[in-house]
């Protein structure tokens, strides 16, 4: 499904957190969002998921603006932060619930969770720990798995690699690549980790102060290019 950002603007006072005229993410594309703290990545995702109200414009999924209808919720998996998790449930109970609201049968759920086994690394299921008592990294695993549980057509992840251990980072990358090639999921991923994001995403958009300042099709030169940009930003602020 196609995700389209149209004339989106979100201001806090006179400060423009996000100001994007037109950005279209075609169906099946893996789209990476990079930028320093305060560049507007999370704000953009929150506008997309209808968690905050933009001052103007909208984001649409499959042609439907997310702030008017609710149908997109059937096809969109997302995990931004712990506010997406129900802390007083066991991971199993949370997955049960997500499966039930998406009409997934018990056996399908089992099969689905088996797919995540390597991602979970034995730390999520059967540990009798409530989600709120899990470590940040394990909470993230639960959130990502819940977002993927119902085979969404669109996937939105904020900083999916942060807080994860190296093995899980590698497994997650494999999983995301497979999702793209096998199921054609439209993926929107923000990250501070340039290595990971260039590896997973075929297109990278660079945000600065809410504006798109670069829009690149990923190639072997992309990582270098991004590193130069971020190194430059730093020396600028030091000067």
């Amino acid at each position, binding site marked *: 499904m196609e995700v389209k950002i149209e004339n989106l603007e979100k201001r806090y006072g006179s400060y423009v957190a996000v100001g994007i005229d037109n950005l279209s993410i075609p169906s099946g594309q893996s789209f990476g969002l990079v930028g320093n703290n305060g560049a507007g990545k999370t704000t953009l995702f929150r506008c997309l998921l209808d*968690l905050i109200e933009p001052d103007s414009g909208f984001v649409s999924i499959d042609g439907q603006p997310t702030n008017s209808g*609710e149908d997109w*919720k059937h096809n969109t998996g997302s995990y931004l932060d712990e*506010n997406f*998790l*129900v802390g*007083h449930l066991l991971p199993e*109970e949370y997955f049960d*619930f997500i499966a039930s609201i998406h009409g997934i049968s018990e056996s399908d759920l089992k099969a689905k969770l088996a797919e995540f086994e390597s991602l979970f690394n034995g730390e999520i299921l059967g540990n009798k720990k409530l989600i709120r008592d899990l470590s940040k990294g394990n909470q993230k695993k639960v959130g990502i798995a819940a977002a993927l549980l119902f085979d969404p057509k669109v996937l939105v992840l904020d900083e999916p690699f942060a807080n994860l251990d190296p093995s899980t980072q590698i497994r997650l990358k494999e999983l995301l690549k497979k999702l793209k090639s096998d199921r054609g999921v439209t993926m929107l991923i923000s990250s501070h980790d340039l290595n990971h994001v260039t590896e997973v995403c075929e297109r990278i958009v660079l945000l600065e102060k809410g504006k798109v300042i670069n829009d690149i099709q990923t190639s072997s030169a992309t990582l270098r290019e991004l590193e130069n940009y971020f190194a430059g930003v730093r020396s600028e602020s030091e000067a």
Partner: protein
Amino acid sequence: MKNLLTILHIDWRESLRSPLWSRKLLINIFMGAGFLYLAGIFVALGVALDDILLKVPMDGIDYNTYGPSFVLRRLDSFLLYYFFFDFVLRYFMQKLPAMSIRPYLHLPIKRSSLVNFLLVKTVWSPFNLFHFLIFIPFMFEVFNNLDFAPALGWSVGFVAIVYANNFGLNYLKRTSEVDTRVYLALLGTLVIVLGLDWFDLVDFQSVSGLIFNQLFLQPWAMMVPIIVAAGCYWINYNYLRHNMYLSRISKSKTSEISYVGSGILSRFGLIGRLTELEFKFIWRNKRPRSVLLLTILFLGYGLIVFPNPDYAGNTLMYILFSIIITGMFMLNYGQYLLGWEGGHFDHILTRNVSFKNYYMSKFLLFVLISMAAMILSIPYAYFGWEVLFVLFCVFLFNMGVNSHIVMFFGSLNPKKVDLTQRTAFNMQGAGAAQFLVAIPILGFPLALYGLGILLWGSTGAVILLGVVGLAGLAGTRFWISLLAAWLKRQRHEISSDFRNQ
């Protein structure tokens, strides 16, 4: 010492900058007025204590026998109870400062400073200060009536006992916080002491007098409580000094939780499943769980009014009490309706569950628990069928009308409820809405009742309540859709409020 003062200073600033102060003016006025009221009562009690003790009929302890010290002697015969109750009260309600040292543990500050900080901080706990509100006015009397040395002995001794209690409890609570045996032992002792006294087996009043009179008879006896208080401080100090590790202080109680699959409620489909999740929420978090326990406790609330001949046939009273009995949970839990879920509100907004179903599940929860309360109140029929009749009509009214009112107020700019906080008398999360909700909840049925009396008399008025309740129930879907529309309009504001809290 310097470090200790610095930490105390930072701690003081923490209370100055507490989110409490940035709350709405209205609620702070309410809280402030409540606080002044309580403080006023204590001071007034202290001022009047003298006269009260003069009026207490106590043979043998009078002016003829003991002269000017007889008032104090009378008081002393109660102090043993007083301090025992104080201890029990503290055990249930006084909170130990523990987490506040977390940010200092890794800094080059002596452990002894941190330990002293934790202990010194309790000195101005309200549980110590309220004694002084009562007894400082009284101490003026003591100094008036007695010589300086005896008066000083008694007064200093009293203060020392307050702190002996404070630090003694601190130690007990630190070493046995989650131990239900202590809980039961305290309650058991209380029952036994009261029992022994009631049946005149042991005269605790004489014992108490004998002990506490020493403070002014032999002023040096004040050293005993001082030493006990210092000793308790020292035990605490020693304990903390050797146990001050994050894992021990914060005692993150990650007890094992067993998987609970979908139960009978999932037969109601999605709404039932949501309600099930809510039951899990209530059961797995202390604060909502205590709301549930309070509900059970308040089932007995009717015993105050129904058997009381003074209220016989006082339908107005019956109605007020019935609102509480069958609606306690709904009123108490529902006023924080969205606030409870402040921690995962983004989940609520992004999952594919409509707001209508969301509110429906809340409604189902209210109905189920109120229904249980109604069924458990059936024995009130013992006090007359009229009682049961009023209870039932009010139950219908609670379900049909009050439930929707509560849900609306609970959705009115909610505050995130901090589930990690203590449970007793916790006002966190309260806003103006939580105060205002009482007006329609009690006012509306009373107005309706008044109208009914004018038209058809008392019985007709009660029936009117029931009928209006049924009408409200019939319109449930409509009310819920209004609530859902309201939430849809407010969703962005609420979610960003939650995120910033």
